[in-house]
């Protein structure tokens, strides 16, 4: 486990380095923008006294470094500041909206991984099926998520009535805030199915692009592995194509696809902004888009931090998985 410990240390150090840089950049951007968060908080008709109080409360009258050091100190105690648009602590807002986004991204990630695996494996095979999958991959990659969402809504909501147009349905009370999980924990199969119906369309829209990307990388990698001598030997001994893929191909070809999967799932958090808006999904993406429109910098900083942490953690997870799957990487460590 030396390699694992070293990898863990590197990722922790990178996280420790990335997050302060992220927060500092966002703080500096706040200073450079002509917006006045105090005016947003105090209101368009605020008196000069109310404006001054709001400015002091937001720390806008402090020099950048003082304000930033104070911000980092508060951050360590879990205080992300106050949102000027919701007037609630940003940490509370994030706690409210993050479970919905996590649920959506997790389901979409699952769909993307399964879809990517299918596209990659089937596409790697010569013949009509493989060619068809490649065509579908190209078409899928070129479909804008907005367009895809509208098409799915028109077909599966308006015309067929199979899925709802938006929202998460009736949410169960805790403990995770993720409706699918909570309904299972509460032993509520009806609630679970309702939650599944609500998550399907947004998750499919969010997953399609990443599935195609993962599939393309896996296909290229798999074709390379399947042409290797040791695989040809295995096939010469009578092993079928599918069995060879399962026993030898996937294990050796999974590395690049896993890297791509980590990247794509990280990108999904950003993509959720559009998808959550289209499907009225009450998550962090919609919260972020509202915050950007309102120049709500505390909220933007908070979300950027969460996304930064998610990105670093996901990459760490992917690297660890690669270590577990590919013994060559462990040896090189």
């Amino acid at each position: 486990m030396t390699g694992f410990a070293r990898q863990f240390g590197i990722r922790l150090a990178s996280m420790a380095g990335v997050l302060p840089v992220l927060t500092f950049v966002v703080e500096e951007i706040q200073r450079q923008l002509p917006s006045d968060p105090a005016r947003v908080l105090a209101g368009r008709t605020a008196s000069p006294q109310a404006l001054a109080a709001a400015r002091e409360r937001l720390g806008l009258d402090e020099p950048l470094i003082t304000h930033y050091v104070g911000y980092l100190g508060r951050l360590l105690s879990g205080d992300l500041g106050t949102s000027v648009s919701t007037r609630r602590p940003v940490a509370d807002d994030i706690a409210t909206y993050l479970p919905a986004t996590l649920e959506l991204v997790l389901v979409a990630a699952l769909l993307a991984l399964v879809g990517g695996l299918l596209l990659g494996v089937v596409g790697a095979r010569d013949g009509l099926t493989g060619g068809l999958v490649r065509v579908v991959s190209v078409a899928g990659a070129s479909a804008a998520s907005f367009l895809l969402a509208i098409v799915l809504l028109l077909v599966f909501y308006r015309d067929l009535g199979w899925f709802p147009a938006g929202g998460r349905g009736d949410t169960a009370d805790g403990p995770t805030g993720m409706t699918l999980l909570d309904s299972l924990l509460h032993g509520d199969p009806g609630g679970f199915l309702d939650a599944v119906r609500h998550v399907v369309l947004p998750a499919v829209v969010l997953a399609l692009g990443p599935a195609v990307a993962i599939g393309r990388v896996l296909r290229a990698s798999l074709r390379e592995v399947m042409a290797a001598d040791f695989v040809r030997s295995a096939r010469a001994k009578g092993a079928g194509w599918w069995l060879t893929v399962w026993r030898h191909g996937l294990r050796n070809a999974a590395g690049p696809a896993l890297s791509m999967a980590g990247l794509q799932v990280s990108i999904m958090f950003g993509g959720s902004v559009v998808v959550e808006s289209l499907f009225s999904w009450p998550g962090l993406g919609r919260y972020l888009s509202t915050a950007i429109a309102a120049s709500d910098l505390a909220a933007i900083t908070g979300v950027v931090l969460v996304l930064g942490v998610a990105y670093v953690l996901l990459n760490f997870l992917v690297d660890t998985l690669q270590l577990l799957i590919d013994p060559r990487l462990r040896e090189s460590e």
Partner: protein
Amino acid sequence: MSRRMSPHRRPLRRNLGISAGLATVALALAACSGGGSGSAGARPKDALRLAISSEMPTLDPQTVYQYEGNQVLTAVYEGLLSYSSDSTDEIVPMLAKSYKLSDDGLTYTFALRDDVTFAGGRAMTSADVKASFERLAAAGVESQMAYMVAGVAKYQTPDEHTFVVRLKAPSSSFLSLVASPFGPKVIDSTVLEENKADNALEYLKTHTAGTGPYQLGSMTAGQEYDLTRRDDYWGEEPSFATVTVKVISDVATQLLQLEGGDLDIVTGQPVATLQQFAKDGDYQVQQFPTLQKANLHVKTSGTLSDMKLREALRDSIDRKTLVSQVWGDYAKVSGQMYPAGMVADGTATDTWQTATGNLATLAQGKTITLGYIAGRTADQQASEALQAQWTDAGATVELVAVQGNDIYGLSGSLDTAPDLLFETAYPDSAHPDTWARLFWYSDLTKGNGALNYLAGGTPAADRYIDRGAAATDETVAEKAYGAAGDAIHNDISYITLADIDDAFIMSKDLTGAGHWLPLSVTLDLRTLKRS
């Protein structure tokens, strides 16, 4: 929490050739579900479903300062007075039966109704009204509407059904602010007392304690608010037993849900959509006048310091074409410096004969920047149309997208601010002070002119505005505000373009829609019925 049953489903229209496996799974899910999906059949008789495009930060009527929150709040809370729901500027009684104003213009005495109860059954008294007015100004509440009662010297409650407000100085706009949709709403004082540690801010985020015809049944953060009709409401019982207000930020998704039968009313739709639905027999488009006005703020320093250039720019605007292009039939060409109907016809006029004149000569070698608020599609469209008109007239105009709240910082950094700023704005009430003081007041040091983004206006106009506010005689006030409008018109630091209407797409079976003039994207749920 109860699960709603699905309304009627539409049979499959066509075979889409989707794989049998997917179809089986999806149909199984649909069969097991409770939520409505894509149903265009009969709509529930006693339930109304509408959409708002952004979530309310709280249900506290004294801290929500946005249009859309009022769709929920006006159904739950009430003030002493109200604007009439026939979309006129008439102020009508609500929780107060009547009021008297003293001769010196300082004391308002409100006679309260004696049959009003809060949700929960407790009778409303003057103590509740006093506590609510005082809370609006409480420092801990940080209400953005606190300015409305900033001029109050003291409150008195001589008996349970009389409420007296003593002002520090006469204010011709006070009554309009009491009646404003954003004005003081009456909250159950026992709730305020029980939660006084934080001024009930936390409690009122997720609970309601008002006198309105509805109360909050349940809410799901970021998704929807479910209102239930009160049996003990003092006024006429509203037709709908339940009202669901869904948070749907995307207008296309709202429209799909309307077509699918999951919504009864949508608003905020593009003009093309309104025109399309106006021709559709299954729907109706209802249009109401509002106080929303499209304007140009003009920076009188820098490139446009030359009055002749400002005049040439203004005169070359063809407002009729602009209105037609951007708002179609859902706006009118502006004729006055104030929102339509705010001051008497023929006063504070803002008209000109469209002519390109010598704009090309005056603007030669200059680049004029026109800002608009990013993300507002109609604003951008209007700005592009203006740019095209000015370009045709020989001027060079560049567009600048300004982020939403960045406009508040423009007056503090005029050097880098655009020369013109397009904005669609609205006042809090139909009184001219709520327009002139915010947008035109040039002396920004006393908290006035909060929305005078490009620091326009003149000291003379400021004096007229102050004179109008202090007037106890209505004629004097009107004359002063008219003169203020004329002064701003002559200075060309502000150009008005259009008075914009509200438009709602509704299912055709809805009747009796009421609308308040100062409150866009909101309907009076008391009068709405399904035929």
